């Protein structure tokens, strides 16, 4: 019974973990803005978690530099299954203006399966909320499959 209660609660409130993989800080600022009172994603249940072990959704920003790649993979490996990986902005999807640079190891989809891409440079806060809502929906589907 307890287990069911916990499962139902986590379904309504997916926790986020944010990884900066060499981002220019534009997307990071936009992600913070959706948690502040203006857009307030916490009213929809999204909460920024301090540890990857507490998270359900991983939000990756930045083009995945060679320096950050082992840390990104290690952090993502610590997030328990089922998890949802969201890339934010153009950088983790393609490298954007940094594509072809000697220090870029991206795109992220080469290393881990990416569930949702939020395009934009940087995306509008409304678009991020849409992307997270889609990620939460996919998370629910993944949990349903597991049962």
């Amino acid at each position: 019974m307890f287990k069911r209660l916990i499962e139902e609660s986590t379904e309504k409130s997916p926790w986020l973990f944010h990884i900066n993989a060499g981002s220019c800080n534009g997307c990071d600022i936009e992600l913070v803005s959706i948690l502040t009172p203006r857009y307030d994603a916490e009213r929809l249940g999204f909460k920024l978690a301090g540890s990857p072990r507490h998270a359900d959704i991983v939000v990756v920003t930045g083009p995945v530099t060679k320096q950050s790649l082992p840390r990104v993979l290690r952090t993502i490996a610590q997030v328990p299954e089922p998890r949802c990986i969201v890339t934010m902005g153009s950088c983790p999807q393609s490298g954007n203006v940094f594509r072809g640079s000697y220090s870029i190891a991206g795109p992220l989809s080469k290393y881990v399966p990416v569930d949702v891409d939020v395009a934009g440079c940087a995306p509008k806060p409304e678009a991020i909320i849409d992307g997270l809502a889609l990620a939460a929906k996919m998370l629910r589907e993944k949990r349903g499959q597991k049962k």
Partner: protein
Amino acid sequence: MDFPFIKEAVSQLFGKSSCAMYPAVPSEAAEGYRGRIVYHPERCIACGMCERVCSGNAITRSVEHLEDGQDKITLTFNLGSCTFCASCADFCAKQAIEFTRDYHMIATSEEDLLVRGSFIKAAPKKKAPGPAKQADCQAQSGAGVKPRDDGKPVSDPSRCVYCTICARKCPVQALTVDRAAKTWMLDEEKCIACGTCAQACPKNCIIL
């Protein structure tokens, strides 16, 4: 005791929330917002300027040769690689690229973020057979156009797409290019032989 912000605190307690309430209340992007790209292939002349100025390498152009000598040109815009700087729209001579205010760019696969458009470029009209054919071959190799002695530009009509970029780059307005009439004219008195037009030409068809 003094409570300096008590009035403000009470008014905020009963006032309207400052939250945007986004999914319940739809929100529209501000005027001039650069969102999803809309490409108008019917206006495009395939000069390739957008591809050159794109900082994120988001634009790719592919040419498919059809059986009847026509070319099917397809431009693909990868929004997952775009910085939304609008350089391509600024440089487009024919206003074929448009940035809309649509910011809903959420994808679950890479294919969802591609904007495609293609058009068929008509083959150049063939002149009467015989000696004209020979001239055509010459023009294609560029041998038909000889550079001038005075360093002023000459255009190769076989390669020119009449995109008018050279005319707009010319610092002394010595060039007149008419897209409809397919003419390229040089005002020799105005020309200062600076070579800007040759540098700007996306087809490298101006010879100095």
